[in-house]
């Protein structure tokens, strides 16, 4: 199966510091791929490079949207252009629009799929009005899918932590991506919330046909969700493969997972 995201030789230098070193990664359609590694390995830098926040020093970032459009090289595109082409992300530190309501946060996600401009806004012609109504309906539908509809008119800053994390996912989904990039979606969640997140991600893949690339430290979630895992350390890929292969890979164990007898979270 052809990869919908194909990263080859990605290198990112910050002055003298090499944050990413010839990294290769691919995601196939309808896959859930996990990117794991110790803190400081360069995982979030990787996300920032492929979504356009940083411009990579070297390498190729290619996407092949399943909806069509062939192969696109997205190096150096601005973040909003990357999102328009179908890759949406969430952030490690929650970056919601705090003083907007939950519904409006999701409506912002719809921005790039709407067309109204200044004249539309001022004139409020029929097309604009219909578009606004549709956006409100669509956003509410997304909230229902994620399970946040009871918060619809609350301010994002007033939401409980777990709901804020899910709102970030809802907002990213509103941009109609073919690939969702989740940066530590389970950070700070307890076991119950993590289990719900697990079900949510699987539901998103099954019902919306969105592929997922996630960065995560919670090994239980990673092992249960992922089809494939890429392991990073010091900006390099040190292993890739199915969860069982990764669990038993000695290099990965040494660098990240820890010895068998102390790490019981790895047990299936």
């Amino acid at each position, binding site marked *: 199966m052809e990869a919908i995201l194909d990263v080859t030789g990605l290198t990112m230098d910050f002055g003298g510091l090499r944050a990413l070193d010839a990294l290769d990664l691919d995601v196939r359609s309808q896959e859930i791929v996990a990117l794991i590694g110790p803190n400081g390995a360069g995982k979030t830098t990787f996300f920032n490079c492929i979504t356009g926040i940083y411009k990579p020093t070297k390498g190729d970032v290619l996407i092949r949207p399943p909806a069509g459009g062939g192969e696109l090289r997205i190096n150096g595109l601005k973040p*909003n252009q990357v999102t328009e082409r179908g890759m949406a992300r969430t952030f490690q530190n929650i*970056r919601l*629009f705090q003083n*907007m309501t939950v*519904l409006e946060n999701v409506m*912002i996600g719809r921005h790039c*799929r709407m067309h109204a401009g200044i004249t539309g*806004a001022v004139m409020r012609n029929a097309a604009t009005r219909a578009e606004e109504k549709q956006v409100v309906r669509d956003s509410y539908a997304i909230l229902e899918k994620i399970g946040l509809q009871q918060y619809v008119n609350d301010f994002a800053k007033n939401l409980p932590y777990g709901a804020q994390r899910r709102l970030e996912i809802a907002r990213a989904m509103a941009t109609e991506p073919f690939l969702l990039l989740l940066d530590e979606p389970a950070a700070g969640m307890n076991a119950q919330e993590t289990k719900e997140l697990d079900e949510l991600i699987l539901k998103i893949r099954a019902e919306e046909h969105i592929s997922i690339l996630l960065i995560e430290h919670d090994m239980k979630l990673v092992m249960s969700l992922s089809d494939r895992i890429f392991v990073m350390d010091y900006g390099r890929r040190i292993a890739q493969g199915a969860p069982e292969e990764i669990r038993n890979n000695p290099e990965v164990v040494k660098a990240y997972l820890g010895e068998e007898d102390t790490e019981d979270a790895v047990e299936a």
Partner: protein
Amino acid sequence: MLNLEEVKRSFFTCLWFMFLTFPIMVIKVDTIDETVDWRWERILWVGAGSFVLSLIWRYLIRRKELGGKEIEAGDEDTPSKFQELVRKSGFYYPILIAAGIFVLIFPQVFSMYQTNIMNTALIYVVVGLGLNIVVGLAGLLDLGYVAFYAVGAYSYALLNMHFGLNFWFALPLGGLLGFLFGIILGFPVLRLRGDYLAIVTLGFGEIIRLVLENWNAFSKGPSGIASIPRPGFFGMEFSINQSIDYMYYLMVALVIFTIFVVRRLQDSRIGRAWIALREDEIACQAMGIDKTRTKLTAFALGATWAGMAGVMFAAKTTFINPASFTIWESIIILCVVVLGGMGSIVGVICGALILILLPEYLRALSEYRMLIFGVVLVCMMVFRPGGIVSSVRRVYKFEKEDG
């Protein structure tokens, strides 16, 4: 109610003030008679006054801190009790209608002098609403907004002087020029944020003023441009009184138009993009919003209103010179927006009316005007940073689906 710690602190404050103001208040040197007059009773007044004020201040601060969570920057959206009352009770429409009637009969009831003052206030309302787009909605701290105001005023003055351009043509042209200048001034500041943006826009404001002041061939320099015609009505000649009344109704129409457009912009795709830009620039880009375009749109649309208000200003005062467009004006307009309530249309209107009308009506205290101004600003920012009327986000209604 008062604890010992506060009283002690206030006492020391009072001693400190007495010490500080001792040379100014107590000692009076009479150079003519060559005597020194020691006015000891003044120090007692200073002491008593500062003690009482200090106590009141500490009491209010304590009440504010106990009253709720700390007000962080951005946590200002609690509507005041007054706002809640007005909105929820059935008084909303009657108040609106009463205000409408008052606005309509204003020039008939009040004197020409009062109407003229109200005209000034209305011009500031339009300018405040324009700056509200840039500062309140998009969160771009623009300290040089007066530049667009100057562009509007000078465009009418110069076009009229050279080409005899009529007011009615100059008004939309002023808006258009404001729009263009907004884009021009917006381009260099695209990558800047926060303080840096403030300083650069402040610089632009000064540049415009200095160009106007020194390029004599173009703008007639410090002597300004005079004899700018007032707006006409199908060629009719007006007396001064009628002219001012006419101007008043024109201003009211412009204000209503501004409110209408700004409201629509606020509640649209663009408006939401501006607010997202204000909240978190990186996240907003990641969600597919073109940061460049959104910022430029904010600057341009904000500047349009300043341009139109500038044309009105030139027509009202019939004489303009660069001294009317200093940075102090920019600061007043910014105060109007911040005091009134950033992002809130009603708030900005209140802010403009209060900030412009109050100094006029308190002319008796004109010596202390700047002092009062400063004190009001400090108190507002400490006790109510959200402004007089804070903005309220729209609430969407959804029917509960059964089954």
